[in-house]
């Protein structure tokens, strides 16, 4: 399997060349273009319960797997938001990925959507983390640029900006600080404090802020009485 992240850094897309029997699993709706000799299968990731928990997070229940039935078949994927993409190679390791940032991975990587630890914490922000583990290639996308911070000790990231982090880090979701005033008046949402050693990837723009900006531009529902 060959891959290349193209059009970096502003409008990144992902290019694969798959030979016979080689496969890649992708987020639904990410396919931008493909050669005709690719077989596409749709399956429910992480079983029925996994699918349901993904659905609750506003994510697609299904995943697509593209398999080459001839050599040299190309597949081009595009994430939904303008931004960058990053390749993470996993060697029997685990990375937590915010579900909206997941784009594609090799079939050897298992995505555990049942994992609900962060769901409870991130509930208010509508964020679900996917647990990606195994050995292979993982591709993530961001809204804006992807900034990688090597944490050695502790580090704080706004929850709306989290893209992914190494499972070696422990995390704790909390208010940004500054007491009650900070909580209610700072305009800052919740932050995630990471402790330990590992990488955390965050995006330089937040989809939630864009949605808030656009809200007043929505038409007003006429009152029908």
């Amino acid at each position, binding site marked *: 399997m060959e891959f290349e992240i193209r059009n970096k*850094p*502003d409008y990144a897309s992902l290019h694969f060349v798959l030979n016979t029997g080689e496969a890649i699993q992708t987020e639904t709706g990410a396919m931008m273009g493909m050669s005709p000799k690719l077989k596409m299968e749709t399956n429910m990731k992480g079983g029925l319960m996994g699918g349901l928990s993904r659905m609750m997070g506003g994510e697609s229940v299904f995943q697509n797997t593209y398999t080459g039935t001839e050599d040299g078949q190309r597949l081009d994927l595009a994430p939904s938001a*303008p*931004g*960058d993409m990053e390749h993470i190679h996993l060697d029997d390791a685990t990375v937590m990925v915010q579900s909206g940032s997941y784009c594609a991975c090799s079939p050897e990587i298992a995505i555990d959507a049942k994992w609900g630890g962060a769901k409870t914490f991130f509930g208010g922000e509508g964020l679900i983390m996917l647990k990606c583990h195994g050995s292979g290639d993982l591709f993530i996308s961001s809204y*804006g*640029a992807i*900034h990688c*911070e090597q944490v050695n*000790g*502790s*580090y*704080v*990231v*706004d929850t709306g*900006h989290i893209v992914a982090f190494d499972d070696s880090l422990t995390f704790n979701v909390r208010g*940004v*600080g*500054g007491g009650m*005033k*900070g909580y209610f*008046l*700072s*305009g*800052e*949402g919740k932050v995630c*404090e990471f402790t330990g050693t590992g990488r955390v990837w*965050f995006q*330089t*723009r*937040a989809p939630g*802020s*864009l949605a*808030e*900006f*656009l*809200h*007043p*531009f*929505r*038409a*007003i*529902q006429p*009152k029908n009485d």
Partner: protein
Amino acid sequence: MQFDIQHRPAYALAVVSLEDGETVVAEAGAMVSMDTNVSLETKAAKKKDEGLVKGLFAGLKRMAAGESFFQNNYTAAGPGKVTFAPTHVGDISVHEIGAVGLMLQSKSYLCSGTEVDVDASWGGAKSFFGGEGMIMLKATGSGPIAFNSFGGVKEIDIDGEYVVDTGHIVAFEDTLTFKVGKFGGGWKAFIFGGEGLVCNFSGTGKLWIQTRNPQGFGEAIGPKLPMRQG
């Protein structure tokens, strides 16, 4: 205090390095990440030498400008870093405030040093009109200020006169005088030409404009979204 703007020009991120005890003031909601030795204090925005009433008035003026009544102060205990990003895709510029003050379109303000006073400035009745938020912020004092643009930012040296669409103004030096008016071409052009209001600048000084108009973007996307409750 050092400002390092990374991921330019499309998705800029301001990385502010603070020394022990240093403080950076930032727009509400702009913080992206920080070291754990940086702490936040949310304060009503007022100048150091202002009393309570004046401070309250300054806060209300800021609200009228579409800014938060409160400002977030991030202070480091030991060297620490904090990063800030605006809402929209686009660039961030850093400018040193000195003898010349800076007028900012209120949504362009991102963060500044503590010696920079950021106050709402009533541009006069002429500049007051709905939608475009032409109540400006006025930054005076000394030190760095970071401001963001929607799209790319273009710095223009004005010596004489220049006309800019109000939705594209980011900031300008207060040595420039400005007058808001309708675009030339009469009422037909104003109503059907889609050009809205423009700002006529004159004098000598720098002007920063943005290559996209947030209002225009909102109007393009808003009607495609589900309707909201009134």
